[in-house]
């Protein structure tokens, strides 16, 4: 009998699972995709906002691609109940889908600050394509845009807002910008950089209310002056889409707890991406990494296992990269571990900062700031990732990097990191380009 796979979620994890199943079985199984939206890449929405790509560029699994991959779809539908004993998934239109195995990749949703006026028209989230369309329609040259929240998601659209020649103010409740991505020293450097590029930054600002005054928005704060905005974008965090699993019997902590094959406590139910709490590569502990690279790797590993392979996942590496006004900002792994030994060095005149975090002579985390135009910055971004990912003992190179945290390249090359990385593959075989599957 043909094996029946059900994939819930058309984001990065779901897409990669589908491509990987088809890479192995060339269409031998049945795949059903349940997705509330037409599948697109959330990662590229900022470029749509900046109008550097057209809307059609954001779609991933287009109808012809779905046909090619032999995927049956339930688009616009939501999963409402999982009956693991019956191997059946119930959808919001009453359809019941029976499966041999199932992937939950339902992602996250944005959360708005709980203040009066947060739901007013003209107050936006920037998460889904529909929300992106709303923001694109509102921002005009000279508009005053207020970004509430100075985290990763807010910063992914910062350049786009400036490209539209809008005036931008960023407000953040925490005492620093990017509090979950870089340390205080790095944040202060980025804040100076933004100010120099015409962005107003206000940290430690607790929003208390948003009021509508003849189409413009008045933002009130616990301390300090009100702000008047044409467009308000709330980027105040995300939460995982798990409520619908209440009563399913799946073990959930912050996310669905999964083993090294990304199986939940129910053997034929997998979870991937934002909703999966799996192994952190650096700490070895369960962690929720709601980031694109984790969704991609989870999706590929699940796809292989659904296709009958036996692929264990080594764990996900926390990593984030941003470019704001041609400044690169990146952090990896245990970049904020207060128990780690840390070397840091700044060259403020060159807008460069490096921080290296150690457990013994192994690099477990890193942070980097530098001018995006400089190939050496990008080189160091990659090599720091490689050093943390490969987790090798750096021996004497640790002392070299203590003397100069900027001199990453010789330490990377001479410590044989390339030799450690070359045999590493996620699926135990060379990768195939997604576009060439089926």
């Amino acid at each position, binding site marked *: 009998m043909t094996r029946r796979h059900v994939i819930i979620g058309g984001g*990065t994890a779901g897409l990669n699972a589908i491509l990987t199943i088809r890479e192995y079985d060339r269409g031998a199984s049945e795949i059903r995709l349940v997705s509330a939206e037409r599948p697109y*890449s959330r*990662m*590229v929405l*900022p*470029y749509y906002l900046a109008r*550097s*790509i057209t809307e059609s*560029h954001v779609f*991933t699994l287009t109808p012809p691609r779905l046909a090619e991959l032999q995927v049956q779809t339930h688009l616009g539908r939501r999963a409402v109940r999982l009956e693991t004993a019956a191997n059946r998934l119930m959808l919001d239109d009453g359809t019941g889908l029976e499966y041999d195995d199932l992937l939950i990749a339902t992602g996250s949703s944005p959360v708005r600050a709980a203040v009066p006026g947060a739901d007013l028209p003209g107050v936006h989230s920037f998460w889904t394509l529909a929300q992106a369309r709303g923001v694109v329609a509102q921002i005009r040259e000279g508009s005053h845009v207020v970004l509430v929240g100075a985290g990763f998601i807010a910063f992914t659209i910062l350049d786009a807002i400036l490209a539209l020649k809008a005036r931008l103010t960023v407000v953040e409740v925490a005492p620093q910008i990017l509090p979950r991505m870089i340390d205080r020293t790095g944040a202060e450097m980025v804040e100076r950089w933004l100010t120099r590029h015409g962005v107003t930054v206000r940290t430690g600002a607790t929003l208390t209310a948003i009021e509508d005054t003849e189409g413009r928005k008045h933002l009130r704060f616990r301390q300090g002056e009100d702000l008047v905005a044409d467009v308000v974008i709330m980027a105040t965090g995300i939460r995982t889409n798990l409520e619908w699993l209440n009563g399913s019997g799946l073990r959930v902590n912050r996310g669905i707890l999964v083993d090294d094959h990304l199986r939940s406590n129910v053997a034929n139910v997998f979870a991937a991406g934002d909703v999966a709490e799996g192994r952190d590569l650096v700490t070895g502990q369960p962690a929720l990494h709601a980031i*694109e*690279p984790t969704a*991609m*790797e989870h999706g*590929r590993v699940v796809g292989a296992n659904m296709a009958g392979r036996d692929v264990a996942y080594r764990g996900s590496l926390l*990593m*984030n*990269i941003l*470019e704001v006004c*041609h400044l*690169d900002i*990146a952090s990896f792994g245990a970049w904020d571990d207060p128990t780690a030994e840390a070397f840091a060095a700044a060259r403020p005149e060159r807008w460069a900062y490096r921080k290296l975090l150690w457990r013994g002579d192994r690099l477990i985390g890193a942070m980097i700031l530098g001018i*995006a*135009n400089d*190939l050496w910055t*990008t*080189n*160091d*971004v*990659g*090599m720091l*990732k*490689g050093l943390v*990912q*490969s987790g090798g003992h750096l021996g*004497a190179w640790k002392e*070299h990097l203590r003397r100069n945290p900027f001199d990453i*390249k*010789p330490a*990377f*090359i*001479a*410590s*044989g*990191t*390339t*030799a450690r*990385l*070359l045999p*590493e*593959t*996620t699926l135990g*075989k*060379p*990768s*195939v*380009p*997604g*576009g*060439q599957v089926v």
Partner: protein
Amino acid sequence: MKVLRITPERCTGCMRCELACSYVQTGTFQPARSVIRVSPFEGHTSYAPYTCTQCAEGWCMTACPVEALTISPVGAKAVLDDQCVGCKLCTIACPYGTIFYNPETQKAFKCDLCGGTPACAAVCPTAAIEYVEAETTDWLGGFASKRVLRSHEGQHAMAEAGG
């Protein structure tokens, strides 16, 4: 598959590979845009060119959210400019630091083996870079570890001598 075999002991640090690479990749002679990078060791007394290994995982390729990286007919991981939106995920995914981003074109760029006639190998006067059938390996690790450690020992000795 043919790969770039690097024999660092032969490199004289003449930088012709960087010039040729930037010219073929960007149309101008600007080593700052070269995707092969010559690194100095031992206080600029020895050198080694470093570039993409076209690794089996293809971290850049699997990370791309819009399938803008593919495998070219000669086996190189290559950027499809029409697809690339410039999100930089590939630059953080590549653990070798060998895929870059051009802010002017807003595209990623990397070694694509010049479509099968790599300019760096063609211009290298000492055959430190050759384009040959071989297994990809860590060409530089052993060479570099000896040289940089030697220079540390030198610095250490100089420091002890009050230098």
